[in-house]
């Protein structure tokens, strides 16, 4: 038997227009905990989906060897039969079914043909729950358990499939400290029992604590594999591998002349809409007129939650915090009030939250500014078309006309429609959440140019982005968020990706 339980060789995976993985290799030794690190969008999850058969053989290039044997998984069931089980970031449990039913879903314990053997089901489920250290009755509905316990049920489910290689995608992202600690302890126990784990995590503290080896992926390529046992690997060392790329001249020039302070947020705290945990915890920031301020943070740091909550409390439950516009404290308890205070928020998820895809450009551009286009409730439709036409020209939206349906436009053009909508409301503050996500390089430059025009016109702009080079290239100042708290503020000029990443991964107990 070879020393490596898993080898992935020269994996290349392309999506239409994007090369998500290019020539990636990964070797995992038997019985170790192997961490995979990388920025958002680096290709970690894609690699794991290739491994677990979510993307079946034939949709990627390269080779997967399990115990030295080449494997071509046709789907998840196939890979699970070989003992490879993935637990996704979004838990895949059915809340109204019991713990036992969830554990054996699709893998039911049967007596005679097609009839569930409940005694066996519940007894075996109880056994598995003991192995993961969960004292719950197997007939409890999963929905009654907290997220931490649900995560353990997922692991129990994996164990029921005789797992040899367990893949966990961001297992602790939604967990509190205690639950995270328990989960990491469980991973160590599983290692004792000979189960190999691959763990994707943004929490570098966890990785240095628990991992035996760390592979770093950046821009769809393997950068390096660090042996965490042989050398003392610091978090800084991992960060250097994650961000080490050059800034090109992808950002149009802009001379920055910040003016008066426009927006100040102080001590903003928000609770998760259903769970009992804070997603934003005492966050503060300010933006001045003619200034671009960046907000950096890893997945789950609370960037979008902060932005949406500030924008008319459109996310979660507001706990505390003050909002000042032009030095005056104001209340914006609904989106309508926020818009009335001349705030704008362009969402990171255009298709779900930003656009009416079945409507045309005209209808989407005017959606937030209909009041401006109307008198006593009647919309001036000619003026509306004119406004949309002007937006189409100034934003360079590539479409046959303003009556084109937005659902048929490319991502970049859809984003320009979203920006047009908010620019038409003539805001003082624009919060742009991932303004260049999923759009090509050319369109990105156009979006940056639009941002430059906005600040030149005296607007205050907040940019939230996962791409650190983008923040460094576009912003004047950058705030970092970690676990819902602002952990740093630094001028973009002179800041480095390494420094940002340090602040972004700063955990609560290490906070200075």
């Amino acid at each position: 038997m070879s020393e490596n339980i898993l080898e992935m060789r020269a994996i290349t995976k392309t999506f239409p227009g994007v090369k998500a993985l290019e020539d990636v290799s990964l070797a995992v030794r038997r019985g170790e905990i192997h961490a995979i690190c990388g920025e958002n969008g680096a290709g970690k999850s894609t690699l794991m989906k290739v491994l677990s058969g979510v993307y079946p053989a034939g949709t990627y290039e390269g080779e997967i060897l399990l115990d030295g044997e080449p494997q071509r998984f046709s789907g998840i069931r196939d890979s699970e039969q070989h003992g490879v089980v993935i637990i996704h970031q979004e838990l895949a449990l059915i809340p109204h079914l019991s713990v036992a039913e969830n554990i054996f879903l699709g893998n039911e314990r049967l007596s005679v043909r097609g009839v569930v053997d409940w005694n066996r089901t519940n007894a075996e489920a109880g056994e598995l729950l003991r192995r993961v250290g969960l004292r719950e009755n197997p007939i409890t509905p999963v929905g009654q358990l907290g997220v931490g316990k649900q995560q353990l049920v997922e692991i129990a489910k994996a164990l029921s499939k005789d797992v040899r290689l367990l893949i966990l995608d961001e297992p602790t992202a939604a967990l509190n400290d205690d639950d995270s600690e328990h989960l990491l302890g469980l991973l160590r126990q599983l290692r004792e029992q000979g189960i190999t784990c691959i763990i994707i995590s943004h929490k570098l503290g966890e990785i240095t604590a628990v991992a035996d080896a760390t592979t770093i992926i950046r821009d769809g390529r393997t950068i390096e594999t660090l042996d965490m046992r042989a050398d003392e690997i610091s978090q800084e060392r991992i960060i250097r591998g994650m961000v080490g790329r050059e800034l090109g001249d992808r950002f149009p020039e802009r001379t920055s002349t910040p003016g008066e302070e426009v927006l100040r947020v102080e001590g903003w705290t928000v609770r998760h809409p259903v769970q009992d945990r804070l997603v934003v915890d005492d966050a503060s920031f300010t933006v001045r007129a003619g200034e671009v301020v960046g907000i950096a943070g890893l997945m789950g740091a609370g960037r979008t939650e902060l932005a949406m909550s500030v924008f008319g409390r459109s996310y979660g439950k507001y706990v505390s915090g003050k909002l000042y516009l032009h030095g005056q404290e104001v209340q914006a308890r609904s989106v309508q009030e926020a818009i009335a205070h001349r705030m704008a928020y362009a969402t990171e998820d255009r298709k779900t939250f930003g656009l009416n895809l079945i409507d045309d450009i005209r209808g989407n551009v005017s959606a937030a500014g209909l009041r401006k286009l109307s008198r006593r409730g009647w919309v001036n439709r000619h003026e509306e078309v004119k406004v949309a036409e002007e937006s189409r020209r100034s934003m360079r939206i590539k479409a046959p006309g303003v009556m084109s349906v937005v659902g048929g436009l490319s991502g970049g053009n859809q984003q320009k429609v979203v920006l047009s909508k908010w620019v038409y409301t003539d805001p003082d503050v624009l919060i742009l959440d991932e303004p260049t996500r999923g759009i090509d390089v050319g369109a990105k430059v156009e979006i940056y140019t639009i941002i430059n025009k906005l600040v030149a016109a005296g607007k205050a702009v907040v940019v939230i982005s996962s791409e650190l080079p983008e923040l460094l290239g576009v912003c004047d100042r950058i705030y970092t968020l970690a676990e819902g708290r602002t952990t740093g503020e630094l001028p973009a000029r002179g800041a480095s990706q390494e420094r940002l990443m340090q602040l972004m991964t700063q955990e609560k107990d290490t906070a200075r």
Partner: protein
Amino acid sequence: MSHTTAPDPGTARSDAGASTGQQGGGAGSRGPLAHLQALTGNLRQSGIFLAFVAIVALFAVATDGVLLSPTNVTNLVLQYSYILVLAIGMVIVIIAGHIDLSVGSVVALTGAVSAVVVIQGGAPWPVGVAAALAVGIAVGAWHGFWVAQVGIPAFIVTLAGMLLFRGLTLRVLDNVSLSPFPDGYSAIASGFINGLLGGNGYDAFTLLVFALGVAGFAVAALRTRRTRQGYGQQVESLPLFALKIVLVAAVTMGFAWLIANSRGLPVVLIILAVLIITYALITKNTVFGRQVYALGGNLSAARLSGVNTRNINFWVFVNMGFLSGVAGVIYSSRSNSAQPNAGNMFELDAIAAAFIGGAAVTGGVGTVVGAMVGGLIMAVMSNGMQLLSIDQSTQSVVRGLVLLAAVAFDVYTKKRAGITR
């Protein structure tokens, strides 16, 4: 910065022809692609009109012209007016992404209240009308509260309403029919305005009213055209524009000639015309109407664009209640009585009218005019099959299949347009 990006894929794909049910497409477009888009985009809308013309022609031939006889055309208007009134409200409910299963019961309840006030209570008939409308609005507010404030799916709320308000109808009427209404009340649905200007076998007044209507339409169209030109938008060529006006005028005056040759201008037709024009304008041209489309198209995006989605949903149901009240008055007036089982299954006809008229099952798409044509398609089919003495069972089968085919066509065109949500 440079703009060396290749032609955007959006330019090629965006003309795939799901320009929704909204009219007036094609303005401000350029190039052959845009024309193609205007053509395919309007296919869904014009497809309905073509289907209507085809069905009318089919039954006109099959019934040896009886379908288009003056008496039958007048009857058709009278007989289906309340369904059309309900369909106006229903299409707005459906655009907002909901459904209302209770309208039949509400028609019965409002008619019953009116009858109790007028026939039992001896109040003047306008009081009965006011009472019916007030009850309709109250019922709408009840539904609106549960849907918009509490967040219960409209399907459930109005299913409960269907039972609830049917029960209340039985209670109000003490399980018996009330009749007859005074003359003024029954004239709402059965009255005619004629003889004001005399006529030669036909009613000149009716023709005059329609002629004024056509003239008004032509003037309004011309003004819109001028304003558009003033805003630098593209408009259709003058001959095409003129042809459209002439066509509309010819069809309308033909219809006017038919009813003028029967009993003259039905009062209910005036009510219906006012409602259709008002609601077509409200849905197309007001902030309220536009926000209904926005929230039906994408609720989250509408909310994040500052649309007060609760308010809009609430008023959509209040409006449905109001129109149910109007339909209740018309129906009780037409049958000259209030019956415990009045309005049974009306909701299904109204829903079918909206969907045949191009409303989308997922919300966000539909027009008042489309729903009217959809309602007329159902009306002509029922009426035509009755004239042909086709038995009830076959009628039901045919109507069911037509509804299914209409929605299947809608789903098909959407898939072809590649719009997935």
